[in-house]
């Protein structure tokens, strides 16, 4: 059975600009997306900033009504049966807002346990279990205002799981968490599906998506541009290769010329302290290293290497093509 289903979902926002001469503006945040998540599946929603991931999640968790299209969770319509759906889903969003600062983590959890109708008898034990799970045990009596970003993020996760929901929506759950903590959280997320839960996850970390997700949808400008297992998405660019070039002070002009080069699929520039890293994806069967280097006139070049494409490369190719 499909636990989460989105059918041609759309959502526009009306906003106004200007203070004196007000103009109303329509933003098409989500433009007809469809997908289905099977029971026990960990489904990733990837896409650049503003692609419409959070908007999609907000529709699925009943906080926003779709402009058109339908969505169902466990077979129930998210608009018609909002309360039924709310009882059975957990929702975790990234960032450090959305907690009661003056309350301790314990009281934040106790409050939401009441709001989710967690039986008073099992509450203490459940909260203890979750504090243990997210690694906040021992700090639960402290007020949230003294919490670090990562600690808040862990508390968000604990809160989303209080009522042991069969379906969990995680919107950038590892944002702001240190590498060791993020690794622990990934293990936690993996354990959710291991215990039979269905999970929808958004993240900007491709290795995270690669490691966790059974299937991924890449969304750009409110539309799904690709959908499949991480392997399938990688296969889309796997035939090519990736040339990485370290350069010192590359000019925008040169990068533009590289993009025009025959056989080049995508170019991204990563700024690294003194230098930049050019990541050039190329079509299969071409030895483009020389052609690439010849476009970088003037800039001094460091290490040059060539490697197999990763999920991140597949993602970049998909998103830049969209």
């Amino acid at each position, binding site marked *: 059975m499909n636990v989460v289903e989105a059918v041609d979902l759309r959502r526009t*926002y*009306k906003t106004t600009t200007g203070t004196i001469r007000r103009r109303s503006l329509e933003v098409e945040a989500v433009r007809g997306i469809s997908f289905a998540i099977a029971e026990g599946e960990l489904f990733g929603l990837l896409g650049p900033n503003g692609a419409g991931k959070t908007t999609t999640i907000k529709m699925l*968790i*009943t*906080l*926003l*009504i779709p402009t058109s299209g339908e969505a169902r969770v466990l077979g129930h319509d998210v608009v018609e049966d909002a*309360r*039924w759906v*709310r*009882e059975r889903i957990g*929702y975790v*969003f990234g960032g450090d*807002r*959305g*907690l*009661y*600062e*003056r*309350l301790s983590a314990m*009281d934040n959890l*106790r*409050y*939401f346990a*009441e*709001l*989710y*109708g967690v039986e*008073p008898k099992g509450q203490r034990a459940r909260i203890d279990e979750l504090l243990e799970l997210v690694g906040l045990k021992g700090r639960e009596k402290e007020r949230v205002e003294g919490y670090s970003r990562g600690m808040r993020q862990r508390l968000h996760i604990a*809160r989303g799981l209080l009522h042991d929901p069969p379906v969990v929506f995680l919107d950038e759950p590892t944002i702001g968490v240190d590498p060791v903590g993020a690794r622990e959280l990934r293990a936690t997320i993996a354990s959710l599906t291991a215990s039979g839960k269905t999970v929808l996850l958004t993240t900007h970390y491709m290795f995270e998506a690669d490691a966790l997700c059974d299937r991924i949808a890449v969304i750009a400008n409110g539309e799904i541009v690709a959908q499949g297992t991480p392997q399938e998405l990688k296969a889309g660019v796997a035939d090519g290769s990736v040339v990485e070039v370290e350069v010192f002070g590359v000019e925008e002009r040169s990068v533009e010329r590289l993009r025009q080069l025959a056989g080049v699929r995508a170019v991204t520039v990563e700024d690294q302290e003194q230098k930049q890293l050019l990541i050039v994806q190329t079509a299969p069967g071409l030895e483009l290293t020389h052609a690439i280097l010849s476009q970088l006139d003037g800039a001094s070049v460091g290490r040059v290497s060539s490697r197999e494409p990763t999920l991140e490369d597949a993602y970049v190719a998909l998103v830049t093509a969209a």
Partner: protein
Amino acid sequence: MSNTAPESRVPRGARGNAGTRFRRAGRTAGQGRAALRVFFVGGRISYRALFNWISPVMYVTTMLGSPLFQILFFTYLGRYAGSRSDDFFIVGNAVQVSAMAGIYGMVMGIANERQFGTLTPLLATPANRLAVFAGRALPNIVNGLVVSSFGFAASWLLLDFSPDAASLPALAFVVVVTVVSCTALGMLIGSIGLRARDVFFAANLVYFLMLLFCGVNVDVDSLPGWMEAIGRSVPLTHGIEAARRVVEGATLGDVRGLIVTEALIGIAYAVAAYVLFRFFEAESRRRASLETF
């Protein structure tokens, strides 16, 4: 298993119906219990979470200090002007300061939810909205009674306020009704604050306007007609009038009309506040209007 045997003799349809009805009844009872816990336990936790003046220093200055000086100020001013007895000012102000607790506390208890960014997670829960909303009122009502009692007690100590002991239960009852209706007014301002930005400014304005319109220090009868009309359509006015009469020796029966009017006004404001809250919730799902400022 032996206990399945009798059940298997029940006709299929009937068994299903009874089962569904049974389950539904159980479910409703469960939801009722959950709603009660949201009302009492949730209300108490949310008060600690959202009431800005919860720390002892802030509480003593805003909830006890400033009411005390308000009572003293107007009573001495009244003595100086020589127009009315001390009791007129003491009762008017000691009841009104309880309104402050209800109004400011309630505004914080609702509007802060958006200010703190916790409204979205709250609205994502399946919790019974009426229980969530009404639960916020209880701690504020209790606080209002504490503040008012403190005001009366301080007046007894410092201003020789000495009503007949027999009138105290009736006075307490009138104060309870008035605090409840003022809390309802706070609810309404709080609901407006879910959408409007600086609602504390509105709360301040309302507080000071009450001093003028509600017969706290000036008889409502002596105000111009339009002011009197406003005064008679908001919480507090009838409560203060009833409290004064009771202190003068009237029984609850004598002031029944005033108490009922005060209560009805309070109910009307509470209903309006809740309807507005639900309207904003529904609208935010359609227009994303509660997401950001």
